[in-house]
Every structure is written in C-alpha cells, then in structure tokens.
C-alpha cells in the first residue's frame, strides 16, 4: 500500500478498539494493520490496548467454587424430578398461570 492510500493517524486511533476487538471488516482491518506496521505514534497505543485486553482476560479467570457447582446441580436435579411428577398438561397450565412479564 502506498503512502497516499494510507489511513491518517486520527482515523486509525478512532478505529483502534474495533481493530483490537476484531470487529472491523477484513478490508478495514487490513488498512489499520498496514498503518500500524509503519507508524511509530499509533503502534504503541495499539500495543497498550492489546496488552490491556490480554491482561483483563487473565485476571478474570475465576472458576466457580465447587460448592456452588454442586448446589446448582442439586437444584436442577430437584427441579427435574419435580417436573416429571407433574403431568404435562398441568405443567403447561401452571407455567401460563405463573409466567412473569418479560
């Protein structure tokens, strides 16, 4: 891509998050990528925002406590058992009666 076709810095910065998030069309992303490869002003910003995303994803890796997992399974098993005891027609009627507004 020649200099003349290159996106200006302000347009790259305006699209930076969308680029980092992978939300641009391939054609747009290519324009941003081409700019970042050669622009020493924009690249560090891109690098920072990308590092932010990787970092935040890593921080949040918090699995469900085992007790909660068991509690959820128990609740679902009970609910499953309860539903089986109620005849289908009655269940539909009950569901209609107790349906909440969305």
């Amino acid at each position, binding site marked *: 891509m020649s200099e003349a076709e290159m996106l200006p810095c302000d347009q790259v910065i305006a699209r930076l*998050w969308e680029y980092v998030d992978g*939300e641009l069309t391939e054609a747009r992303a290519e324009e941003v990528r081409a700019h970042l490869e050669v622009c020493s002003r924009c690249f560090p910003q891109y690098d920072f925002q990308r590092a932010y995303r990787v*970092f935040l994803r890593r*921080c949040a890796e918090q*699995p469900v406590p085992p007790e909660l997992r068991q509690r959820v399974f128990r609740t679902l098993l009970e*609910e*499953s058992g309860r539903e089986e005891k109620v005849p289908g027609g009655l269940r539909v009627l009950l569901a209609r009666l107790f349906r909440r507004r969305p």
Partner: protein
Amino acid sequence: VTGGITKPGFTEEALPQLDSVYRFALRLAAGREAEAEDLVQDTFLRAYRSWDTFRPGSNARAWLLTICRNVFLRGEERRGRRPEVTESQIDADVEALAATAAFSEVEAADPERAFFDSFVDEEVMRALDALPAPFREAVVLSDLEGLSYPEVAEVLDLPVGTVKSRLFRGRRLLQQALYGYALEMGYVRPKERT
C-alpha cells in the same frame, strides 16, 4: 451427576457456561460473593424452566447472561436499590476524563511496559467493581467474557453504537483508575515535568 437433568441439550449447552455466568454475576454484584452465588443458582433454575424458549444453535452464553442480568435487576428493584448513576452523570464523568487518556500517562511513566504486570487480580477486580454499572457491564461482557459487540448489545438490550461508547468509555475509566492506583502504590512514577 447430571444424569437426572432431563431436558435435552441443557447439560451440553447451558451447564458449560457456569464459569461465565459466575464471573458475570460476581461483577454485577460488585464482588459480593454470597449474592453472586444466589444469582447463579436463580439464573440456572430459570434457564432450566424456560429451556424450551432457547433457540437451538443460538448463543447459549449470551442467553444465560441475559437471564442472569434480568434476575439481578429484578432483585435490585425488589430491594429498592436505585440505579447508582444517571445517564447525565455518566456523561459528566466522562467529560471530565476526556482529556486524560490513560495511555499517554502510562507510556511516559512506564518505559519498561510492565504496567499491567504490576497488579494482582483482586486489585483489578476492585477497580472494575468501582465503575458505574453501565460501564462495568459492557467491560465485563467484552473484556472478561469475550463477547462480540452484537452479543453484548443483545445481553444489555442496547444498540451496538451505545455498547461501543459505553465499552470504550468504561475501558478508559478503568485504565485511569488503575493508573491512579499504580501511582498511589508506587508501581509507577509520574514522569517528571521539565
């Protein structure tokens, strides 16, 4: 253990989202664990009861996170908790911050690029929990859960444009908060003004 959960597809599609729903619930409840756990339990119970409304092949995670948020908001209403900020306050906060993009300060203060490595996870989650809810939700769904903009829009029931502006502002607020905290803790030093 799940042999008795009888609705077809629920075990395969919904249950693997338990970690995601828990992470989201924790942040909705601003780190209050007991509240988050109840929220997860309610979410899965409701999801199970209305599993027949789930369109097979659509995004189970977005569907569950939507339910989780609805359960949370209904609980907030019941407890009489008012929304913590209004839209106009949001705009005012953001205006005040507009001139202070965290990046340029961090860049000046952190030539080794070790800024993000200096925090422990709890510090970051505390900073995230301190964000106003509309920003926090957008940041959590995108940055922690990796949802696409349209998926975040679906969960929050907002237009994609609004999602983007909340997400970008939320990130800026969070980065700014982290930078302030890092200065306070001495993780970074402000650049000498010459």
